[in-house]
């Protein structure tokens, strides 16, 4: 393959048609309260881990819903599970279970992903 001094850039677009919903479906099935997220960001604002490192809990929802598993896996490691987010959530989402479910599901699907 020839090298012309530049490379063809991979698209940044989220291609929803390539989305693998297994992870999402499993998490939503086990924790349906996660469906009602409003993306208000209260969780992120109160997050203890967010004080120490760039970490956005609200984005976990989006990463999961857009199939960004690789980023999700590295991001979700940052959560300390302190539970403040749950006390703030206006929709009463059981976020700690969501985090644990995502971790578990990622561990489960890891051989397939990698």
């Amino acid at each position: 393959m020839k090298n012309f001094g530049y490379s063809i850039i991979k698209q940044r677009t989220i291609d929803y048609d390539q989305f693998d919903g297994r992870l999402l479906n499993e998490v939503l099935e086990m924790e349906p309260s996660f469906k009602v997220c409003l993306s208000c960001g209260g969780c992120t604002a109160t997050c203890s881990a967010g004080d120490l490192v760039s970490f956005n809990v609200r984005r976990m929802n989006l990463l999961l819903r857009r199939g960004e598993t690789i980023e999700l896996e590295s991001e979700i490691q940052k959560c300390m599970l302190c539970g403040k987010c749950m006390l703030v959530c206006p929709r009463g989402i059981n976020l700690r279970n969501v985090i644990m479910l995502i971790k578990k599901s990622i561990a489960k699907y890891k051989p397939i992903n990698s």
Partner: protein
Amino acid sequence: MKAEGKIRVWQDYQKEIADDHYFYVRSCIRQNFFPGSEQTFLKILRTELGKDIYENPHHTTCSGIGYHSDVVPFDTIQTIVARQFALMTEAGYKNLAASCITSFGIYNEIIETWKEFPSELEKVRNFLKSATGREFEVPQNVAHASDIVYKFRDDIAARKKFSLINQHTGEPLKIVEHIGCHYSKMFPSKGVGGAEFPHVLVGMIESWGGEVIDYPERRHCCGFGFRQYLVMSNRGYSVSNSRKKFESMEPYIPDAILCNCPGCPMFLDRWQYVIEEMEGKTFGENGAGIPVLTYEEMAGLVLGYDPWDLGLQMHQTNVEPLLNKIGIQYNPELKYAGKDGKMIGKPMMVGCGW
């Protein structure tokens, strides 16, 4: 796709195109990329249609590429454009015909600016006067050369030697139309058919017997984007733009791509070759590339002009599959023969998918 819906949109965007006496301004880059095109345009207008079209040897670049690359300030480009208008005024013409889409966009942008801010016009008149002593009138009608071909598409069809029909199947050729961004995306009303469903090339294709492909990424830019190309390390952005379009049109198995901009045919043509070299991927039928033509070249083919006189040997993606489908006879031996019969030299790089 509902035809009546598109026709309704086209009706909303009908522009006035002068029908004779044009002052022609050339494109800087087309003369190098596809040198036969502008020549063919003049030939068709003068000999086939008997129109009066004048070009002044003193006209210059509109400096649009410099302007869009942030090296030419607005005052400067306004003055340069004013000088073109002065040449036109001096020659007694009122209808501007631009070969280049970037220039066409620039002329429209500047004329619209002058309408909104008359003080700018006065300022530019002073600049031009003090720099060159020239005076000018704003053109009455600004058309892109493709507008003019669109206007006379049926006259050309009446003289056609070939139709855009696949000789082997009898089916209309499936053609992708691609307008330059600055043709109507800045001012939808300045382009025939507007920006969403432009009609300028569609009209030509349908009039000459072909069928238009409407593929999802039809709106997308070819990827030229001035700075994306001018800086070598940025060219990846440019290629990936084009690739997005190719991927989107691929399922329709197009026979050709038709363009009305200097940059688009250059990049849609050249990047097909590059993508094949870099990734081994081609997008046309039977592993070949998709031939990319300018509207003048297409008109020339329809009128029976010799493909090599049209400059089709300058294309990096080989056009022979298209010529074969249309049923145009050509001598492969003469592909790289110059006017005087001497070989002009074969390109080192072999065309896409050939």
